[in-house]
């Protein structure tokens, strides 16, 4: 049942090569093989969004993608997005608004929210709620998260206007 496959990919800008069990999911690959524990699993069914990371620029469910399918892929995790500074403003808004309580959903939520920042820069509160609806948060009432995303969108629009 456990065949192994060699893959080489880029994770957070670093080249990585591993021989992986064919049944290993991306999120488990990141967590156990690379020690990148920022992405979490909570449902393992693609429902909750806690495992969301970026593959080739798109947010994906790390619990639904097999690592063996990622030869040549470019993967970004919350650690990489933090180091690159791409979503520094969004993260600061999360801190300022207390949009994370236990923080378990937060990395996945941020990767999803980062997508709104580029895909829907004019999103309304309702659209933000829709967009993050695949990401469960059990602690907050979601309101602070919506506030934080909205703050970030507004601030980015203002910065754009000034430019």
């Amino acid at each position, binding site marked *: 049942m456990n065949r192994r496959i060699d893959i080489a990919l880029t994770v957070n800008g670093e080249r990585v090569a591993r021989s992986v069990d064919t049944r290993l999911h991306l999120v488990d690959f990141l967590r156990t093989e690379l020690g990148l524990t920022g992405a979490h699993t909570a*449902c393992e069914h693609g429902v909750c969004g806690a495992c969301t990371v970026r593959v080739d620029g798109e947010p994906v469910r790390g619990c639904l993608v097999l690592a063996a399918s990622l030869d040549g892929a470019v993967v970004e995790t919350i*650690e990489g997005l933090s180091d690159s500074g791409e979503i520094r403003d969004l993260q600061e808004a999360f801190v300022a608004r207390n949009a994370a*309580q236990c923080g*378990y*959903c937060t990395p996945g939520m941020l990767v999803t929210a980062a997508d709104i920042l580029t895909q829907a820069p004019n999103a309304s509160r309702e659209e933000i709620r829709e967009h993050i609806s695949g990401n469960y948060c*059990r602690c*907050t*009432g979601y309101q602070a998260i919506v506030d934080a995303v909205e703050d970030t969108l507004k601030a980015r629009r203002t910065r754009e206007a000034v430019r």
Partner: protein
Amino acid sequence: MNEIVTPKSLGLSREDLPNSYIGRAVPRPNARKLVEGRATYTDDVTLPRLVHAAFLRSPHAHARIVSIDTSAALKVPGVVRVFTAADLAAVCDPWVAVLAHLKGMKSAPQYPLPLERATWQGEAVVAVVAETRAAAEDGVAALAVEFESLPAQVDMETALAPGAVVIHPELGDNLVFTRTAETGDVAAAFASAHKVVEATFHTGRHTGVTLEPRSIIADYNRADGTLTVHHSTQAPHMMQNVFATQLRMAESDVRVICKDVGGSYGIKVHVYPDEMAVACMSKIMGRPVKFIADRFEAFGSDIHARDHRITGRLAVDAEGRFLAFDIDDLTGIGPYSVYPRTSAVEGNQVVNLCGGPYAFANYRCTTTVVLQNKAPTCQYRAVGHPIATTVTEGLVDLAAEALGMDKVAIRRKNLIPDDAYPCTSPAGMKFEGLSHHASLDKLLEMVPVDKIRADQAEQRKRGVYRGLGFASFIELTNPSPFMYGIGGAKISAQDGCTVRMDPDGSVVAMSGVTEQGQGTEAILAQIVAHGVGVPVSKVKVVTGDTRTVPYGGGTWACRGAGIGGEAALQSAIALKEQILEVAGAMLQAQGASLDIVMGEVVDKATGQARMPLAELGRIVYYRGDTLPKDLARELVQTRHFITKEYPFAFTNGIQASWLEVDVETGMVKLLEHWCVEDCGRVINPMLVDEQVRGGIVQGIGGALYEHCVYNEDGQLLTTTLADYLVPMAAEMPDMHVGHVETPTKESLLGAKGAGEAGTAGAPAAIMNAINDAIAPLGAKVLAQPFTPDRILRALGTIA
């Protein structure tokens, strides 16, 4: 020094002084690691020679374990060992979850794995340990276990009926506990009543769904005989005691570490047999064993809660005054009472809390707690509160209807007056100081009732059914030993804090209460910064390690701020006094003439800076030779706190829900939600607001979506997040939170809890709003969750 410290002298109600952190929305110092994905949850911890456990779980609700063949499992690559119940029972004593003060309570002994019979579907029966979790699961798949399926007692309504399957024959029957509280003359009150309303309510069995599942690593070291447990728990010292007791070790040989915890809500404050099994296996193997529940296991083995049927009657006089409540509660708790808090406490809370916000003289309430072959239930966020609030507030609305009275007016008439305290409720609860009327006033400032009623009437003409519902509630916080200790449970009601000044003037605070995302560490830092007189950025808080923090209860029943916070304040004040004594010796001044402001020793009268704390620290730690020989110089102080006058600090509040019922589909759309609550001194309004909102959303979950559904054979049908619905962002309304502050006089800080308020009141507010919406159609729903199916049935759309 020598002056009496008061809330006023500490500036606890000033917000704008540089040093004053109480009442300020300071961001959480630990939030940055959460948003960068650099927190450490239990599954993130890895240790040398770590092995992983997986469990074979009972496929039957009730079955005899006939035989277990492990030979094929042992041949699976990566499998290290297989453990059966007898292997573990050899190193672990069973536990019985009863409390002495719950008179007559009984339950059966429970082992890490059941010796002869599985008593719920999902109960762990055999454990496989392997090099990876995947290999352990392969091993489980290769196990051959023969079960003989037994008749299951699933329905709580028939658990005491003649012919019911007695789940533990040695107990005689399935009755775990029953209690009746009775005050006044209930029969006479009902006989003399102008109107009597009656209804039967159901609260659906649901569960916590912590996003981080239950997680544990047990690491037994044979060389020194110590057990270190990395655990996603709310009560590390309680677990230290439990591991030590059951595994026959000294408490000091057990260390429980909980770093970041991914949500708990009461789910992670219990003893789970599969987690005990992990500790046993580590002790036997002498190497670390990790178990992380997956979501399927979580649904079938995390505690459930709120499986109640409650019939209530309310008697009122012609003016709408409440004369008497008469309530009968029945709850099914699964096959075992859960250790050590017991599964009888939820029903007991229903008895304690029904009618709680109101002034009336006659009360009778009975709870009956029975066994059944379903997953065990136990304490989950706002234990018993949403049930009691649903019954009480549901009956209040019925009474208003029967009398033709306005729903706010009937509450206004009956809520305990704000000047009536202290007082004791008919259920025997002592109230120190509540603010029902002030809270209602505040709510009415926030909710545009007239506008909403006008909109409601207008919309009805168009066939759109909107409703506004209210729910007053009381919330039990800051528990004393009267909650568990007097019953013999080793659960600490006191908590401690050690505060230490380091040479550079920074401060470390070690606390027995824990952080699960509420912001405990943030408020402790605020309190200590305030108490010592340093910038909040100079305070580092340590929690969640029983080897280093003072002994305490952890975080449950909203005790973090009220108990842990007060211990932090007391220790901070003590440290400040100590620092000033040393400063006095250095500066040749009376300690009492000095103060500390933003990390600087200053002259109290003039505010003139005398010495930075870093200089004081340098001298104390490195040049102690220059100080008077007999000067006490320990810049570290510990204080413990326990409430003394009242068994609990009750808080109160009121919620309102505004929603729309689609009478075609039965769907409920939440439009807006309000909550006013009084948690005493608010330490960090931002954190309190989001606690309240998170609580409301969990209450909404129970009211509308969440349900652990079993079929009649006791098979759990909701085992994934696709079957078991939890609230998501798009369905949630905007939630407005307001505060009234009635600090408790039990402590200097005056803080009470806020974490359960939202969950306590939201389901009742939603029920009343739905019934307000569909009242013109002659329909009513009383069974949670209020699913489209149930609403359409109530409307007569479907049969």
